[in-house]
């Protein structure tokens, strides 16, 4: 049988992979440097912190929603639990905040492990149970004794932590999330997950251990929001059950990730940066109808670019795939 290809194309695919990787790591370095010097120039620290946090959350969500197709509507639970684990570790256990953040990550992953059986459910049932669990967590924390969680008033960490350090911690977590995403996309686990997303039954018939692969993705997806939630509590110096478990956190995360394109590494990053920025612009220009325009943008994205900015672009122009991770 004759080979139906020219060797040039063969070199090209291999090179495309190198090009993609170089572009991606270059971008990560640029982000790292850019965000690192912001406090020095006294930039808008809160805006940049928010941006980094949302990118981390959206990237974390991508691990489960983008790579396996599960949509955890109660994603905020991990963020809230991370925030509270940090708060309790610092205020009640007297732990240093630098140790409290990894502790929060561990707690988040353990909670993910605890509710991993929910992955048995599919579609809307998984979504509803996930949402309900987030609400149960919120109410449970409000019910706990005030000496531990501060009840419905929450906890105040401001006195014992330094805000700028919280900013840099977020930057480190962001970079870790981005590198994890690019590692996952290239790894065998990532391929197994994408296969599961596209057709779980076929993947299993080809020897993929669906339950185990999904669990790994789930645990990765629970780690980052817990870290981000803890760092948010550190940066703002306060936390309470209403904001720590706000359903809007899930909704925004999903929308940012989806706007950029779930299932791509670059998507959640681009989607978040664009939408947070647009949100900020709208907020300044039209303070009254801010949410109306945001809602309209979301609706338009879903209707006209269902795979998000990056996903729709690479669908229209498949050649771009060689540059986009």
């Amino acid at each position, binding site marked *: 049988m004759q080979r139906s290809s020219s060797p040039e194309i063969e070199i090209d695919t291999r090179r495309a992979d190198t090009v993609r990787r170089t572009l991606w790591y270059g971008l990560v370095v640029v982000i790292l440097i850019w965000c690192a010097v912001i406090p020095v120039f006294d930039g808008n620290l809160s805006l940049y912190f928010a941006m980094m946090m949302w990118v981390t959350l959206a990237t974390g969500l991508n691990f489960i929603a983008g790579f396996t*197709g599960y*949509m955890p*509507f109660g994603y905020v639970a991990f963020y809230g639990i991370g925030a509270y684990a940090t708060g309790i570790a610092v205020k009640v256990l007297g732990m240093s905040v630098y140790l409290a953040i990894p502790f929060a990550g561990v707690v988040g992953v353990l909670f993910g492990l605890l509710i991993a*059986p929910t992955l048995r*459910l*599919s*579609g*809307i*049932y998984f*979504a*509803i*149970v996930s*949402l*309900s*669990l987030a*609400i*149960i967590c919120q*109410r*449970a924390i*409000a*019910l706990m004794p005030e000496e531990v969680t501060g009840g419905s008033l929450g906890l105040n960490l401001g006195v014992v932590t330094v805000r700028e350090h919280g900013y840099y911690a977020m930057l480190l977590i962001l970079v870790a999330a981005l590198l994890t995403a690019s590692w996952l996309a290239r790894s065998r686990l990532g391929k197994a997950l994408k296969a599961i997303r596209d057709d779980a039954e076929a993947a299993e018939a080809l020897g993929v251990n669906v339950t185990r692969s999904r669990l790994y993705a789930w645990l990765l997806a629970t780690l980052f929001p817990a870290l981000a939630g803890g760092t948010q509590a550190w940066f703002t110096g306060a936390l309470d059950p209403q904001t720590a478990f706000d*359903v809007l956190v899930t*909704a925004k995360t*999903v*929308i940012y990730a*989806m706007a950029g394109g779930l299932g791509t590494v670059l998507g959640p990053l681009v989607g978040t940066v664009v939408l947070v920025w647009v949100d900020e612009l709208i907020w300044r220009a039209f303070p*009254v*109808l*801010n*949410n*109306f325009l*945001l*809602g*309209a*943008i*979301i*609706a338009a994205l*879903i*209707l*006209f670019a*269902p*795979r998000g900015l990056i996903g729709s672009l690479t669908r229209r122009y498949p050649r771009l795939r060689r540059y986009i991770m």
Partner: protein
Amino acid sequence: MNSVLLINGLIGGVVFGAIYALIGSSLNVLVGVLRIINFAHGEFILAGGFLTYVLLTYFGINPLVALPFAAVLFFAVGYVLYYLLIPRLAHSDEPETASFLLMFGVSLMIVSVLTWIFEADVRPINFSFDPINVLLYTVENGYGEGRDAKVLVPTARLVALAINALIIVALTWFFYRTLPGKAMRAAIMNREAVQIVGIDIHRLSATAFGLAASLAAVTGVLLTLVVPSIDPNGGADLTLIGFIVIALGGLGHPVGALAAGIIFGLVEQVSNVMLPQAAAQMLGFMILVAVIFFKPSGLFGLERGR
């Protein structure tokens, strides 16, 4: 004394339960027939409530008159909204998730418009019947010697309950006795098959969307009778209740939503008087999670493969 509290809880449970059943039924039409996770459902209900508020406050129109008006108006709105939004959803990889996000966007828009017009305050609904309350039951010396405990229920709640019951009867008749109703039930079971037997799925879907919007608006009108105030930010809670009810009752199970609504209403209202507030709210969700885990087809659902 405790028995009076309990009776109050039970009556409240039935009144709220009937409302929840109605929310569940309309949401069920969307989830079942259209596979749309309508995150804006609570806002549809609020829109009906605000229409009642405007008609009552500025034009002095009785909510009972507003009710048929809201029903027709929102049917039309829903019908048009379907053609504007839903057919394009078929282009996405996961239409269910996409529908959730789309409707989340819509809900942001509705809330934003409502708070723009009415501001973020809770608005009172100044409407009551004469007499204001109906005395249902008296426990002699219930609060100690010479002080009778009385079980009083606002007339408006009883009226709302009666209308609610009528709507549910009419809805059941519609689903089981009329052709469009039967077609919708068929579409819940198998959307593809319905198209093969010659039903225009878009017209059926638009009708279903109109019906759901209409029912949601009517629920909003009835809700102003049950709770005489309206909050532009209260939509998400109503949406959540809708999802709880349909998960309990079984997805796309028209009668299941009814029983599930009443059960959830009873649990919520009785635990409200018996437990701290946060614990009462937790209980409802814990029941939900348990039901989905141990009987994923809902309390009344038929076992289906999958």
